[in-house]
């Protein structure tokens, strides 16, 4: 078994050397969440899936600390009553309180303002299109509206993106995409590991 141990150690060293602190934080939070959230009593598949998804998202948000989307994601989950207990225990009370307190500037976006902006934008573009109906300008206006429309959908996709301007929205999406990729990768590893320990006959109390 010494060779196997060598391999294990090498594997761990590479993990260490690569300094996957994001991974470490993610895995820890995820395991913690799963442990706390899933009990043997709950047989419902839907409920289990919900808890797993919640754990994964919170883990990603915790690991991606310092980003706007991270906080927005936690807040989004904290709104549901069912998640509050789990969130509080995962994050620790202090952190939970500090995150969920209202009043953070970009997130304090008022819906009124947005509605006004939208109305203003729409009337403006309609006026412009009607007034100067030259080909070049129309093409540009159409292109701009296409980009604007897509920006809006991107804002709805990225958590906390509604109150961001274009530039920081792009920065947030970069970060969000990377952490989503990592989340998918880690979850895939996790499913494989767990499914294998299911298969192996030697698992002591593995999947019981």
């Amino acid at each position, binding site marked *: 078994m010494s*060779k*196997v141990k060598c*391999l*294990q150690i090498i594997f761990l*060293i590479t993990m*260490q*050397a*690569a*300094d*996957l*602190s*994001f*991974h470490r*934080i993610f895995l*820890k*939070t995820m395991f913690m969440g799963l*442990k*706390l959230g*899933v*009990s*043997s009593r709950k047989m419902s*598949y839907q409920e289990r*899936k919900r808890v797993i*998804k919640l754990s994964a998202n919170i883990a990603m948000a*915790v690991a991606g600390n*310092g*980003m706007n989307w991270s906080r927005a994601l936690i807040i989004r989950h904290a709104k549901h009553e069912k998640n509050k207990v789990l969130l509080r*225990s*995962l994050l*620790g*009370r202090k952190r939970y309180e500090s995150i969920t307190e209202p009043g953070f500037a970009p997130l304090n976006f008022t819906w009124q303002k947005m509605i006004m902006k939208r109305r203003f934008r729409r009337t403006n573009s309609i006026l412009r299109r009607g007034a100067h109906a030259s080909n070049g300008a129309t093409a540009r206006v159409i292109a701009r509206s296409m980009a604007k429309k897509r920006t809006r959908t991107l804002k709805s*996709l*990225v958590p906390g993106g509604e109150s961001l301007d274009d*530039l920081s929205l*792009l*920065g947030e*999406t*970069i*970060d969000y995409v*990377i952490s*989503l*990729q*990592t*989340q*998918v*990768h880690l979850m895939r590893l996790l*499913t*494989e*590991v*767990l499914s*294998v320990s*299911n*298969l*192996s006959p*030697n*698992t*002591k*109390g*593995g*999947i019981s």
Partner: protein
Amino acid sequence: MNCGTPSPDQLRPALGLSSFNWNQSMDSLSPIFPLPASGEISSFMGNPLNSMHVNRLMQFPADPGFAERAARYSCFSSANYGAFSGVSEAAGKPSRVSSGHCLKAKESRMQLEMGDGEFGSGKEDSSVTDPASVLGESSAKKRKAAAKRKLKVTVENDLIAKKSRSAESTEIEKDSGMPKEEQNVDEKKQGKDDGTKASEPFKDYIHVRARRGQATDSHSLAERVRREKISQRMKLLQDLVPGCNKITGKALMLDEIINYVQALQRQVEFLSMKLATVNPGLEFNLENLFAKESLLNQENASFSSSLYPMENLSASINFGHQSNEESPIPFTLANGIDTHCSIGQLDSILHQAALMQSSLDMFGSSASQVENLWDDELNTVLQSSFGQNQEIGAPSQSFHGQLSIPHMKIEL
């Protein structure tokens, strides 16, 4: 991945975003950045990686700046393919292979993410503080070099940023440079009309020059700065989203990004569904969890500093045990109890768990089982890393055989 350290004055202007973190990261980076280049590791993982590097290099367009960037971040991009494989087969790479071995890729990816976190969270993105080098350079090559420098720096930066929060201290001193930049740029803009393409030597503020034949009023210049920044970020996104090399135009690119994000979110949903089915009881094997985490933690010096005494550990952990699983380890984390567990506590708890685990291993029948389990799981994880997903059960037996490291390389 060998990221050199550009000098701070190159660095500063090259970073179109909040550049404060990156200088300090550059300085502190070089001793710390761990390149997994030790003999065993490279032999273990290096060969597939190197070949992957070469493969990735072949793929990229023959633009010199881009190729260089590709060389640095080949792992990075290959990992993208892997992650995305579940959604589109058009990635063209054996998804398993790519998604796997690039722990370094994850690192770089994560680092990139964290570096982006640094600049993203800085809200002082004044539209004027764009690096002169990016603005002054009109050639695509130079722009790519700047972006590459930025990427490189973000990679290095993240490593530091996550490891130590000393980023904050240096943020402040760089921040003082920022308001100055704004004023200087305004003055500078009024002072020029001939507009050359060259950028002035920058001291600690960014000069923005009007280009030849373009308007020199401050509004258009600021807009140009903003547009350049946006295009930089779009380029970064182009690298992230697979299959977007040929797409030009903001709207189409945004389309791809949106599709990709939706695909990733769907993948998360699907994987959580899979996790829910894979593990019907979801009695998480504590040995499994803690063994991995503990071995991880043992290597890491930073965690050892936060050791709690054993009494504290048992006190904090000895909650009621709702799920009646028989685990050789006499403690579990109870469900639904408000444990005030922050991650730091969790670290120390897991570390302690590791110690207890290892001490328990020495006696008790669980030892061999843990080892077997660990082997299986290690095997699985390695296999998934190296892109082999067929018949996980079968190779586990061969694993228990006499598998040497070079042999393992060949097998995988």
